[in-house]
């Protein structure tokens, strides 16, 4: 149980780290490259990370307590 909890928390740390990096990346894309397509791709990746790891979209097909 403790191992599972630590693993879940570590996953959260990794996701927020990647989100922070991608936010900085999109900031610099806007300043240096001014590419709408790249900014949209980065936003899509960030949204996908939140939907998958924070919102647990896969639980939609599972039947479990909570």
């Amino acid at each position, binding site marked *: 149980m403790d191992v599972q909890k630590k693993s*879940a928390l570590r996953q959260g740390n990794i996701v*927020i780290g990647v989100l922070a990096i991608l936010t900085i990346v999109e900031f610099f894309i806007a300043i240096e490259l001014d590419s709408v397509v790249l900014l949209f791709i*980065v936003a899509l990746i960030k949204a996908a990370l*939140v939907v998958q*790891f*924070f919102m647990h979209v896969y639980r939609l097909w*599972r*039947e479990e*307590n*909570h």
Partner: protein
Amino acid sequence: MSVYTKTHQGAQVHHEEDRGHELPYATQVKANRLGLWLFFISEFFLFGALLITRFYLWNEPGIGQTRPELSQELGLITTSILLLSSYFVYRGETAVTYGDQKAFTRSFMGAALLGLLFFVGVVVMEWNLFGISLELFGIEWFGHLKPSDGVYGGVFYMMTGMHALHVISGVGLLLVAWYRGRKGDYTPERHWGVEGIALYWHYVDVIWIFFYPALYLIGKPV
């Protein structure tokens, strides 16, 4: 009920059918999740329409995409605060799943405070409710765009206003979960209330993930 069922056989059958419709908790939670995701999809039409409005109205012939001159630093700070609040909610949900009530209430209170800070950052500072002008550490801390500033002001206030409304209602929900968590209403087996509110908060975050580049980063500042 006993008299009623003795004299009306049909009514007795009806009551028994009602009990038969009570779902196991896990099945009910699965249905709740589906309902909430359908709500998110319906909300996406609203936010999607706002995004389309932005790209249509802020497109200048001969220039392409434009945007109003906004404080880049303030946008980045508020965005980081909202992302961090989502992380706190994730930690809170994980804590309640493993029976750590203290960590859960602490995380949800932290998320609510960060959400409130985001709300202040957008409504008080970016909208500049009190007409303040402050430049500190090279950062312009208060905005200057007004709702009456043509398509830029109109679209900006419509998008941030609709999002801020969701943020403040999310903060209220986080505080409800925090209060109920303090009373010990949630267990590792039964905490749909926490999961539902966490989902809503993350959804508000996802919307901002698209709004942030649309408002602050895409296009030439005018």
